[in-house]
């Protein structure tokens, strides 16, 4: 039995932040979870789906975030407790609904988990979703460690239910994807049944609803004043205080300890960051003359505290605020203990913590001169490598300076060496076909470059269809290439409408990409990218046509394929490989760039790396010498 379902209150277990959020939802008796996968929030719904049967939870992977949010809201309106989790970009996708559900209100507890990604470790931006809480006048909670991730989520349902508003819980990658100690709470007995009553309309009396929304926020502020998630550590007499929230808390505490400042610097840790617990904060700032605000990414808390200080200027007097605006901490990228310590050192004029300068200098020199860089690449056996090779070859054959607009998914790596630098634009989900559909209408301005929009299968369902319809209706010259690997691979192969199974792994109806395309009235071809020469020929042919066209390159994600089937083993027949005499310029290892093929320095010939190769066999079809061969057929 996994830790998620353990019924041992008081037991301490190791949990990933996302799992702790899921456990908090379980302890709150969550009934319904709909989400679209997105790093770093994916493991929240994934965890709930894993125990859905055990706790009678309905769990689905929805087509996109707004659909997920609307579905979860429906459950709330019927009196159930519901959760929706998404990455930061997903919050933009549901923003339209968010800006009306706040006015129309909700019923059962509804929690929106926003997983932000400071430093964009696995994202195309690092936006700070907390701004949506202020924008939409919704309560916002920010867990600072694993225990809080669980406990706050549980509480978020109560906050939401009491107010009749969605409650936003904001996590970041370093919480969601880190692991730590969590003491389990009790598992509830669930008794809710669904029944819709009442009226939830935004738009009839907007100004009155808006005013009522503001009153609700004042009401929740009162509850926030007494929250256990807001606390102060340090001397009561400290004149210098760090105000922090979320991930900033552990970094701040360690930085203060590392510098031996416990007696002089207090830490005001705030868990309820919108609306702010104003009385609580003012109480702890009475003797304070300097504040350093520590948070990721935007100066959200910083600005809100500054407003409060301005309002309280008469009672609190002048207070110096350090943070993003003062330049002591960056308003971009993720934080760490060193950055917080550096801010303290510079503000307080302390001596820097000693790290032997000579050691560091020598180590950095070594890193530069001796250590080869390592970039993420397509996995061995990845169909995208073959697809992008086909695209590159077809565009080269075509010779009109064609280019590729990119989208969001594993194939984004194709903007780099792994995909032969083919992708020239990357923005948001569906952005590639939207742009391409615009490029395709520039003919009257002497534009004659062919445009290929690549788009993953999950992205296709999520956000690409309206742009494809637009391309069809306006007869835009665009070739869309759907890289269909059978699931949402980037986040761990969650199912999408074409996968044929649901969040619990049960069989589900499919909506075929080609049927959608045909319904729109667009020519569509389906090819296996591993049949590379055919794929290149077809792409080239399609590039010569006008209007919107779709090529579906269909081949399952090899990470999944390799798990399910025993794969063939390939090796380089070194009698056939003639090395540099071949004239192929080390095609397999150097040009095709699959990490499964290495160069045998001794033999001066190619060699398969058996630790890395997954046996897809594409290189065998490409080797001009026919030197890459199967070792023994698989079962």
């Amino acid at each position, binding site marked *: 039995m996994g830790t998620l379902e353990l019924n041992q209150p008081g037991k*301490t277990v*190791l949990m990933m932040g996302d799992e702790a959020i899921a456990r908090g939802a379980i302890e709150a008796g969550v009934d319904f979870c709909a989400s679209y996968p997105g*790093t*770093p929030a994916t493991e929240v719904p994934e965890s709930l789906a894993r125990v859905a049967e055990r706790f009678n939870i309905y769990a689905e992977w929805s087509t996109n975030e707004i659909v997920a949010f609307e579905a979860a809201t429906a459950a709330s309106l019927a009196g159930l407790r519901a959760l929706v989790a998404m990455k930061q970009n997903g919050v933009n996708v549901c923003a339209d609904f968010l800006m009306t559900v706040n006015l129309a209100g909700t019923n059962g507890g509804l929690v929106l988990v926003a997983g932000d990604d400071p430093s964009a*470790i*696995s994202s195309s931006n690092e936006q700070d979703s907390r701004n949506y809480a202020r924008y939409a006048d919704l309560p916002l909670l920010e867990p600072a*460690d694993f225990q809080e991730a669980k406990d706050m989520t549980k509480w978020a349902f109560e906050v939401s239910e009491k107010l009749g508003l969605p409650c936003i819980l904001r996590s970041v990658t*370093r*919480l969601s*994807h*880190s*692991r*730590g*100690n969590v003491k389990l709470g009790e598992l509830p007995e669930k008794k809710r049944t669904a029944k819709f009553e009442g009226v939830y309309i935004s738009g009839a009396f907007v100004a009155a609803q808006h005013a009522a929304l503001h009153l609700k926020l004042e009401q929740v502020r009162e509850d926030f004043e007494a929250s256990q998630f807001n606390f102060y550590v340090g001397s009561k007499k400290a004149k210098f205080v760090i105000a922090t929230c979320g*991930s900033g808390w*552990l*970094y701040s*505490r*360690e930085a203060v300890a*590392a510098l031996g400042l416990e007696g002089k610097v207090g830490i005001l840790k705030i868990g309820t960051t919108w609306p702010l617990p104003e009385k609580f904060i003012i109480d702890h700032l009475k003797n304070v003359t300097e504040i350093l605000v520590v948070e990721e990414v935007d100066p959200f808390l910083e600005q809100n505290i500054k407003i409060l200080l301005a309002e309280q200027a008469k009672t609190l007097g002048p207070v110096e605020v350090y943070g993003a605006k003062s330049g002591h901490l960056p308003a971009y990228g993720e934080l*760490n*203990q*060193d950055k917080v*310590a550096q801010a303290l050192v510079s503000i307080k004029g302390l001596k820097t913590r000693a*790290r*032997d300068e000579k*050691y*560091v200098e020598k*180590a*950095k020199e*070594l*890193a530069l001169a*001796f*250590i*080869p*860089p*390592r*970039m*993420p*690449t*397509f*996995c061995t056996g990845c169909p995208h490598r073959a697809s992008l090779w086909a695209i590159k070859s077809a565009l080269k054959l075509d010779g009109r300076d064609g280019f590729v607009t990119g989208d969001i998914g594993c194939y984004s*790596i194709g903007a780099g*060496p*792994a995909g032969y630098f083919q992708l020239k634009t990357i923005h948001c989900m569906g952005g590639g076909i939207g742009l391409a559909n615009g490029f395709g209408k520039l003919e009257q301005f002497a534009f004659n470059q062919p445009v290929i929009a690549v788009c993953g299968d999950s992205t296709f369902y999520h956000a690409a269809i309206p742009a494809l319809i637009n391309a069809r209706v306006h007869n835009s010259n665009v070739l869309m290439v759907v890289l269909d690997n059978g699931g949402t691979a*980037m986040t761990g192969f969650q199912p999408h409408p074409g996968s044929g199974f649901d969040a619990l792994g049960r069989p589900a109806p499919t909506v075929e990409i080609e049927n959608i395309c045909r319904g729109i009235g667009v020519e569509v071809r389906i090819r296996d990218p591993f049949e590379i020469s055919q794929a290149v020929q077809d792409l080239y042919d399609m590039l010569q046509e006008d209007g919107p066209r779709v090529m579906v390159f269909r081949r399952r994600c090899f990470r999944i394929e390799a798990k399910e089937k025993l794969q063939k083993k390939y090796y380089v027949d070194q009698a056939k490989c003639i090395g540099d005499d071949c004239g192929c310029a*080390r095609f397999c*290892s*150097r*040009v095709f*760039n699959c*990490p499964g*093929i*290495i*160069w045998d320095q001794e033999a001066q010939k190619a060699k398969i*790396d*058996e*630790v*890395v190769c997954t046996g897809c066999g594409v290189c065998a079809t490409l080797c001009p010498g026919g030197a890459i061969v199967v070792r023994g057929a698989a*079962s």
Partner: protein
Amino acid sequence: MTLEKDPLNLIIAGVGGQGNILASQIVATAAIKEGLYVTVGETYGASQRGGPVMSHVRFSAQAQCGPLIPEGEADIIVGLEPIEALRIIADFGNPRTRVIVSPRPIYPIWVLSGQAKYPPVEEIVQKLGEFVAEVRVVKAIEEGETGLAANVVMVGALAGSGMVHIGMKNFEESMREIMSPKDLDLNLRAFKKGVELIRGRARIPAISKPRRHK
């Protein structure tokens, strides 16, 4: 329980696909069983796809630590890949750091494409030695092996080294908890192989899956 250094900071360094995350999860679960606070900071996403992967594992008897080890504060480095172990030094190494490393290289694509050079492994180990207190080479993958469970061999080596004060029983229980029953036996053997390798016992049988029927 007290630690000789608190917090004690471990970095497990490797390449996407080597099982870095599972390795850190085994160690961290064992640490919780030992009654410690433990925090594992790791990144994935793009790192699944052959990029460098680094797990920060931080043990404390007193409090939950942040997910990232401060600069120069790695006490132990477990390298699942030699150049990745060395890559850690500039940011996190210090003269007291101790290293356990598997010598089997995984070549970056820029090396394959000829734009960068991968230095000889003996030189990597020698360079490591210039920067840290101790380097122990553990041959987790034998010639011709596919590297199956090599991550767990390295966890075994860590456990056997005595560098972290976590009992063998807790490592084993941790694996029983995390692994699916069908993989457990193989991984327990891999763990044991790691323990014995670092303790210098010879003739360890290779780790292989039971043969599948054709």
